[in-house]
């Protein structure tokens, strides 16, 4: 089984959707691990243990980033939002206002891409 977290019967889903589910589940797990490690770093009074836990926590951040990038390359809308909001400065809500009330709403207001991307695995 791909995951216990599927909300629909696996035989109703295609391979691409299940792979996206795997990646999103993995991303959640990595971020949850960052949170848990972070709390343990703060809670322990042993500085050498805190050092190891902080190292492990930061590796989970790398894993989360890699998984997010996998998703971005396959999800044009996620790609659009990340390009809009990441690596910016100033008010995040201000960026939304500048981009329009919601850049994701309405086909006329989007970036114009048809979001085709890779077709490997697509039926001929």
């Amino acid at each position, binding site marked *: 089984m791909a995951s216990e977290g599927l909300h629909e019967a696996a035989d109703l889903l295609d391979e691409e959707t299940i792979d996206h589910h795997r990646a999103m589940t993995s991303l959640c797990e990595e971020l949850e691990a960052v949170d848990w490690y972070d709390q343990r770093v703060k809670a322990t009074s042993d500085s050498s243990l805190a050092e190891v836990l902080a190292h492990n926590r930061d590796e989970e951040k790398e894993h989360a980033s890699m998984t997010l990038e996998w998703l971005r*390359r396959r999800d*044009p809308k996620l*790609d659009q939002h990340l*390009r809009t909001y990441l690596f910016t400065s100033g008010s995040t809500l201000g960026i939304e206002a500048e981009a329009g009330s919601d850049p994701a709403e*309405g*086909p*006329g*207001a*989007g*970036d*114009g*891409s*048809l*979001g*085709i*991307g*890779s*077709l*490997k*695995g*697509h039926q*001929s």
Partner: protein
Amino acid sequence: MNHLHRELAPIGDAGWQAIEDEIKPRLETHLAARKLVDFDGPLGWAHSATATGRTTSIAGPSPDVTGSQRRVLPLVELRSDFILRRAEVDDAERGATDLDLAGLEEAGRHIALAENTAVFHGYPAGQITGITESTAHGALTLSPDAEHYPTAVAEAVDVLRGAGIGGPYGLALSPGIYTEIVHTAEHGGHLLLDHLRQILGGPLVWAPGVEGGIVLSLRGGDFVLQSGQDISIGYAWHDAETVALYLEESFSFRVLEPDAAVALRSKKKG
């Protein structure tokens, strides 16, 4: 707003949705190269060139200093213009679903054909060398008799394996040959299509723009289409009766492993 200027078009959300719903599945049918080669990106309209990791020596600026210059592969921009009747697009706002968007469909075929041709056979003006131009192996000849195609395809797979190129393998086919394969049953009633799939371990792809056929590895890392802007719809101008739009993309293509493909030559047309 971006360089596509869609906001300036006299087209409502339902019209844009109808246009996108019409063209996307057609493009997914015609864009054969993306079914077989790696797709990197999209990296955005501002992405201008693919790094090759190579340099060219140039004259140093002074006798005591040497110089070299990075070599890059500039992205090409492809654009296919089309014109729609405004009344037809307006009908989408009224709920019409049987719109006549012939110009859009034609433009879709044109840009897909151009992308396929660039990847499989090259685009010299755009500095793109195609797969059949790059392959290190000699072309194999397809017999005029379709029942003998498995022999040529198996031989091509053998050439790739012999060169240490792992599978699975895919086969891009000209539309005429693809159709012939689909219609052919071998002795015993087995479909030729299924037999070829078993030999390849991967798909046969209907590929407008391909001459003959190309067997290539699908293991990844051998052929890379790097996308700047993926195929998008932009606005050019409008008058009282018509609206002029275009399909546009930017990309580069590189063959990283010339051993990973074998061309199949056919004397048949199409």
